[in-house]
């Protein structure tokens, strides 16, 4: 098989992705398959944010809020909280639509202004959503406050549940594996949509706005609406991933939607390469896998070198994220794996 032929390369990649959970399971154990599931969720989120930040050049610092909206929509409509058990194909799209509405409500007043305002407003919005989720348990209990909602229905299509193990042809396929395939399918869908968008009229309009808003509007682009579209679309993807997250975890609480999560997703996009799908996927994989390794390594290494754990690995991790954001912007503004177009732009004209 000639690997340099694109078709063959795709086939090989597909084969690897299909058997990957079993390889991970055999080599590292069950826990890492779960981590792979989370990696896929984060990649979906990062791809959604990439539309906003990478294509349209709008800085969204509260992206996790849309994820939260999707997750809570799914959780409230499919858990003992209200005794509702709506099916996934209603709650997932509903979560996406509600996230999209929030995106439009937030974007409409801010997107006609400078990009900086959007950054601040989204930052505030992310916090506000968390405050509401935390406090909407009294006097009417809606979100169950800081305790969160548990016992959320598993993701289920027809009679087929992704939340339990199945036996096919003598092979036992566990729930984490099933979720892997489900999330993989969704990720591929998001990648497909992103790629189609990239080359579409809308995608080109986004890039034009990112590069020079005045010139773009002179070319007849309705900049506000096109920006709003990017923002709403990013929010929609966030909502879908949120629903999947809730179904996968079986539990949601405001804790999962802190500002630091937004920052982490932003890191994936910036580090990997803004506007480049491959780069964003790479960023997602790196930023999920590295901290996990780090978590296992940071404690013992400090123990070995200094005799005690001086620095809490979690804050060390965040510190590294912060440094990474600064250093990447200073020295490799297009990310680890930049899009060819961006590289071209950066090489030909400096500081235009």
């Amino acid at each position, binding site marked *: 098989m000639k690997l340099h032929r694109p078709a063959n390369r795709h086939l090989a990649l597909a084969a690897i992705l299909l058997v990957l959970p079993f390889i991970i399971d055999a080599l590292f154990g069950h826990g890492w398959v779960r981590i792979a599931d989370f990696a896929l969720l984060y990649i979906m989120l990062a791809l959604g944010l990439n539309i906003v930040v990478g294509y349209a*050049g709008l800085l969204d610092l509260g992206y996790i809020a849309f994820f939260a909206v999707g997750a809570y929509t799914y959780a409230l409509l499919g858990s003992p909280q209200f005794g509702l058990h709506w099916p996934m194909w209603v709650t997932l799209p509903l979560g996406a639509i509600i996230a999209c509405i929030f995106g439009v409500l937030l974007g409409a007043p801010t997107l006609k202004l*400078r*990009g*900086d305002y959007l*950054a601040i407003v989204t930052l505030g919005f992310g*916090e506000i959503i968390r405050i509401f989720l935390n*406090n909407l348990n*009294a006097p009417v209990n809606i979100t169950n406050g800081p305790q969160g909602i548990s016992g959320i229905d598993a993701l289920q299509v027809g009679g087929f549940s992704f939340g339990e193990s199945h036996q096919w042809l003598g092979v036992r396929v566990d729930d984490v594996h099933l979720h892997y395939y489900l999330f993989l399918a969704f990720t591929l869908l998001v990648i497909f949509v992103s790629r189609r968008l990239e080359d579409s009229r809308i995608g080109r309009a986004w890039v034009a706005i990112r590069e020079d808003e005045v010139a773009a509007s002179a070319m007849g682009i309705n900049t506000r609406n096109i920006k709003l579209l990017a923002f709403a679309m990013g929010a929609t993807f966030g909502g879908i991933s949120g629903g999947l997250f809730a179904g996968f975890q079986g539990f949601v609480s405001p804790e999962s939607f802190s500002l630091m999560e937004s920052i982490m997703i932003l890191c994936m996009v910036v580090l990997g390469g803004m506007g480049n799908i491959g780069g964003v996927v790479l960023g997602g994989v790196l930023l999920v896998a590295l901290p996990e390794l780090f978590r296992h390594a940071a404690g013992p290494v400090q123990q070995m070198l200094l005799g005690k754990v001086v620095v809490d690995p979690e804050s060390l991790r965040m510190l590294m994220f912060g440094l990474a954001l600064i250093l990447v912007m200073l020295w490799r*503004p297009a990310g680890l794996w930049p899009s060819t177009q961006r590289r071209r732009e950066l090489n030909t004209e400096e500081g235009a």
Partner: protein
Amino acid sequence: MDIFFQQIINGLVQGSVYALVALGYTMVYGILGLINFAHGEVVMIGAMIALAVLQALLAAAFSPVLAVLISLMMAMAVCMALGYSIERIAYRPLRNAPRLAPLITAIGVSIVLQNLAMMIWGREYHAFTLPFNSVSHQIGGAIVNDVQIGIVVVALIIMAGLLWLVHHSRMGRAMRAVAENPAAATLMGVDINRVISNTFMLGSALAAIAGFMVSVNYGIVHYYMGFMLGLKAFTAAVLGGIGNLRGAMLGGVLLGLIESLGAGYIGDLTGGFLGSHYQDVFAFFVLIAVLVFRPSGLLGEKLAERA
């Protein structure tokens, strides 16, 4: 009525702090057109340094007044150095880069500072009390203590000083010139880089004072305190008209009042559905409302869309 008066006083005190922080945002914005996201963390670092120095000095049996003054000075010095470094490291190399770049580095700086503070001072809340007795006074049914009066008075003096500095000193004239037109200012022999560094240091010194005030007022210091404070102060700057010094002062005080009155009455207004723990939400709605109805702020002339 007593509650109303009390909330007005609380709002004025909190508003003075917002105003000082908002000045830092607005000065940098006026000159560079950049939102210095890390400014809130500078406030936090100022508070932390002040507390550390104060405790060390009191332990060394310094007189309380001297200890407070020295700790404030130290906090200002550290914050000025910090502000200078932030500008040099994170913003100056990106001055001609696309708009997104300095915003992202600013976020990075903010996270780094926050986590450094957490590593040094831990996750817990630290008590911050002044080493003198603060006497409470009854004014028209409301209670005010010396600390609160001190905060408002010091804030007023500092703001007056800043206005004088910007409008009547050589440095202030250079700042205004750069804000007006950087290229023309350079031609007139103004060293832009120095002016920008000065602006950052001035803003950071104000941030240190604000950090000291807010911690004395609430009696606690925490590594996460800078984030919300920064967000609100930015809102105050936008409310007053970003880039406008008087606007930042007005916006700060107004936001303080809106917040304390809002938190005091939201329970009654919503029939008990929403309580005072939604206090942090007000600033955000004010921000959205200003951006929708009057993006240039109360005193702002015009919001230039710099692409």
